[in-house]
Structures are given as structure tokens and as C-alpha cells.
């Protein structure tokens, strides 16, 4: 093999690896998306000027859309790997959000900031997961 051919092969390897890099997993974005969902969707339940049933409908629609986007992301990605977080982690995080919301619903209105606290409490574990996944995705 001559030098020109070696250069050509290395350039091709570079091109292919750049193409792979462009589609590497971005699981952290999914976790961050759900953190934002918890942070911005739960607190308005404690805002007196928003009808709770109406807001509940909004949450259901946005949550359903988020679930669909999440499903599509995991189903269609081109790079696959052993999940850095076990699948049940997502269930636990979602369950924790549910528990935080239910606790807030029980303690509101005697504790006026209940939904704000619940939103933050539900979002924090997602943020931690997003940080962990970001670090793995960019290793």
C-alpha cells in the first residue's frame, strides 16, 4: 500500500466516524425533556387562576405527546447500546413524579407551595439522570 492509498483510507475512516458521531445517542435530552415537563406542568396546579381540570387535560395531552416522542426516539435511533440506565429507572422516575403530585394534591391548599415543591422534587431526579447520561453520551 502506498502513501496516497493510506491517506485515502484514513480520510474515509474519518468521514464514516463523523457520520456515526452525528447519530450517537442523546438519551440525556430525553431525561432533560421530562425534567422540564415535571418542572413546568406540576406547579400551575397550585395557581388559583388556572382551572385544575383544564390544566389536567393539558398535562395529559403534553404527557402523551412526550411519551410518543420518547417512544419514537428509542425505536428509531440508529446507534444502539446497552442502556446506561436500566429501563425500570424511567418507571421509577415517572412513579416518583406521580407520588410527588399526589402528595401535593393532598397537602394543597393548606400548603400553598405544595405543587411548586412537587414540580421541583419530581424534576430533580430527571436532571440528575440527564447529567449522568450526558456524561456517558459525551465520553
Amino acid at each position: 500500500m502506498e502513501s496516497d492509498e493510506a491517506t485515502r483510507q484514513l480520510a474515509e475512516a474519518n468521514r464514516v466516524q463523523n457520520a456515526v458521531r452525528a447519530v450517537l445517542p442523546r438519551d440525556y435530552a430525553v431525561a432533560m425533556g421530562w425534567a422540564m415537563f415535571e418542572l413546568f406542568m406540576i406547579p400551575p396546579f397550585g395557581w388559583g387562576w388556572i382551572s385544575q381540570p383544564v390544566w389536567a387535560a393539558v398535562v395529559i395531552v403534553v404527557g402523551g405527546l412526550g411519551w410518543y416522542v420518547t417512544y419514537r426516539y428509542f425505536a428509531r435511533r440508529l446507534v444502539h447500546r446497552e442502556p446506561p440506565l436500566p429501563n425500570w429507572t424511567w418507571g421509577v422516575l415517572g412513579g416518583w413524579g406521580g407520588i410527588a403530585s399526589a402528595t401535593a394534591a393532598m397537602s394543597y391548599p393548606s400548603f400553598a407551595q405544595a405543587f411548586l415543591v412537587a414540580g421541583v422534587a419530581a424534576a430533580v431526579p430527571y436532571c440528575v439522570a440527564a447529567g449522568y447520561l450526558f456524561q456517558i453520551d459525551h465520553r
Partner: protein
Amino acid sequence: MNHPREALDDLLVHGVRFSIVAAVAQACELDFGFVRDTLDVSDSVLSRQVSQLEEAGYVRVRKGYVGKRPRTWLSCTARGKKAFAKHVAALNAIIGERS
């Protein structure tokens, strides 16, 4: 002193095989269709070259499903990564020898 070309991996001298290993060496598993499109080769060409790499223990093939759709995933073995690194070092040595 041996010429650096003697350190090249015989299997990876082939352009398509080299590109396949280059792609899978940096990700855990790659979708077969993605590799095919990135390398701009046909299914049959890719299958043939992947089979050779699989026989040599450089690449692992896993068949699975996403929903009801069958998908094939390619990944690089430790042996494949080692061979790729050695081959790239040899290529760099060949280029370095000229300059």
C-alpha cells in the same frame, strides 16, 4: 527494518471492510441500514463483508426487533478494535514514512 505496510491487517486492507470496522469501532451497536447508507453499498455487499469480519471475530451481528420490524445490529469486538487501532497506526506510519 520492516516496512510499515507489513503491519497492515490483511482483512482491513479492503476498503469496505475497513470502513465497517471504522464505523462500529466507536459505537456499541450500529443499525445495519445506517452502515449500508453511510458506506453507500448494497445490502448484499455489506452482508458479505460483514460475514467475513464476523468469521474473523472482528464484528458481532445481532438480530432483533424494534416493534414488529426486524433489525440487524453490528458491533465491534475487542479483537476488532485492536486490529483497527493497529491498522490505523500502520497507515499513519506509511504516511509518515513519505514525509
